[in-house]
């Protein structure tokens, strides 16, 4: 598999603030999830990959070419930026067609390409309306259409699902999967693990401007499984529940969360723990009101991976 995007020892500083810290990563063809909590450096990576920013140190290459100030390379790159900004006075079609014309297409070709891209994101019925009247989901779709209109080989999507409703989310996911299947290289940035899981198994994890891990999502999960899982149990009778749970072999720790009338359980075998839980729930006089994992957010994953 060939690398499409390469970061070689890239650092990016914004004054005293560090955006990326000696990041070296190679992103191969296909769909790749770029994961990281807010402020991890995902958008900085994408802005470097599209030549909007210049690396303070190191080198960024896309399709074998340096990205900074490389206008010709932009024929092969499409970006769906995170910011919700448009030429609001334009219609959806007008906006996407303008983007197509800026890549050098004739008016006729640009119109055809814009209509095709808009159809692909399911916006044909609304393409004649002004963008300022669009819903958030429509705006995300049109933003994706402008990134697709010149049929780039590399497509970078910065938090494409932000603010979208479930229907738009499903449709956009389908479009992204199709693009991957049709040979495009797609990088989807997100801070929500399950969003990316629906698109690809190949992920890159960044945190505080550093590469934390890269590879298959299952490997990441395996890595996480080596650390104790934290499970919250909410019950009015949390004290007697705690007394029973400390006797269990697979429970490594029990913390009382008095304010929440809950227990924070740490276990390395969450599957076995969950299997035994219904039995203890029946034994206790006061029922367990709520059970949830404290590890379902990406921030927790990163805490594990960076050892904090």
């Amino acid at each position, binding site marked *: *598999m*060939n*690398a*499409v995007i*390469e970061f070689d020892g890239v650092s990016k500083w*914004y004054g005293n603030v560090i*955006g990326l810290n000696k990041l070296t990563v*190679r*992103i*191969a063809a296909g769909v790749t999830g770029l994961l990281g909590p*807010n*402020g*991890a*450096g*995902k*958008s*900085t990576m994408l*802005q470097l990959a*599209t030549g*909007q*920013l*210049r690396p303070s140190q190191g080198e960024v290459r896309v*399709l*074998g*070419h340096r990205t900074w*100030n*490389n*206008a*010709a*390379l*932009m*024929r*092969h*790159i*499409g*970006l769906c930026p*995170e*910011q*919700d*900004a*448009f*030429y609001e006075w334009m219609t959806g079609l007008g906006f996407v067609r*303008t*983007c197509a*014309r*800026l*890549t*050098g*297409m*004739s008016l006729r070709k640009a119109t055809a390409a814009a209509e095709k891209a808009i159809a692909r994101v399911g916006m044909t019925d609304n393409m004649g309306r002004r963008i300022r009247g669009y819903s958030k989901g429509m705006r995300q779709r049109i933003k994706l259409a*402008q990134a697709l209109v010149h049929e780039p080989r590399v497509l970078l999507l910065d*938090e494409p699902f*932000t603010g979208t409703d479930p229907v738009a989310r499903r449709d956009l996911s389908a479009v992204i999967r199709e693009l991957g299947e049709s040979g495009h290289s797609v990088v989807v940035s997100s*801070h929500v693990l399950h969003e990316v899981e629906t698109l690809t198994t*190949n992920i890159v994890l960044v945190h505080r401007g550093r590469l*934390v891990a*890269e*590879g298959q999502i299952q*490997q990441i999960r395996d*890595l996480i499984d080596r650390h104790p899982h934290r499970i919250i149990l909410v019950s009015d009778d949390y004290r007697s529940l705690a007394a029973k749970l400390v006797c269990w072999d697979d429970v490594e720790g029990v913390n009382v969360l008095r304010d929440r009338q809950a227990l924070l359980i740490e276990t390395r075998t969450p599957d076995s723990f969950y299997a035994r839980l219904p039995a203890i729930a029946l034994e206790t006089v006061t029922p367990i009101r709520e059970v949830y994992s404290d590890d379902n957010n990406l921030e927790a994953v990163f805490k594990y991976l960076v050892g904090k």
Partner: protein
Amino acid sequence: MMEPATVVGHDAVRLSRIPNFRGLFALLVLALRQQVRGWRLIILGLLFLLPGALAAIVYEAAPASARRSSPAEVFDFVFLFMLIPHALAPLAALLCAGGIVRDEVEEQTLTYLLLRPLPRMAIYTVKLLAALIIAALLTSFFTVATLVFIAWLSGEPPTVGYVAQGMTIAAIFSLAQVAYCGLFALLALLMRRALLVGVIYIIFFEGLLATFDTIARRMTVMYYFRLLVLRWLNPARGVTWEFNLKTAPTAANCVLTLLVAGFVLAIVGSLIFASREFRMKTPEGE
């Protein structure tokens, strides 16, 4: 950390070096559309109606004897060659050229331009050209319209050379706008409060400095504007703005100076634009 994905090289592509003229033309059209949209053009249009309105008020308020003593010549001088070039023309350039980059950055739409196969220097230059076209057209149109209005008001239509006079006025104002637009676009690129600084510049440099007979006034656009007015139009007999036309630069030199100044300012601006990063802040604040 896990092992990286299998990577053996990069899937390099050959990049086209053919200039993207269609893209640049599309950018010019987009920039022109941006210029004529919104409050800016409405405000400027209203401001440019001011000289005509003032002329009408002064004419109506003047005693009958004063009305008979060639008011058109005086009005032309006061409004066409003082008020418009001193205040309105540079203000039009400031508003049109000052926003070519700033507006796109503030509205976060610059990304859509930087993502296209358009050289950065060309993006700046084309947007500046659009600003110049609008500023020059606006100034020329309203100045000629004011000229016609004053002629109609005073009942002294200059039948001889009427079209030529209008075209000459338009040409002089357009030349001034070349320099003004280059200057104000660069100013906006260099500082945040470009509008305020621009107004201060207009008042102190183009207003005061250009009035005093010092060597420093050769640094102002107004100096060359006035010389061109004197050499090509001779608007009001006896008024020379303290120029000695025998030693002052020729009309050709004035034209060349304004064009070269505009060109150099545009090149400097485009070089700065090409080397500058425009970081788009994301909602998550990265």
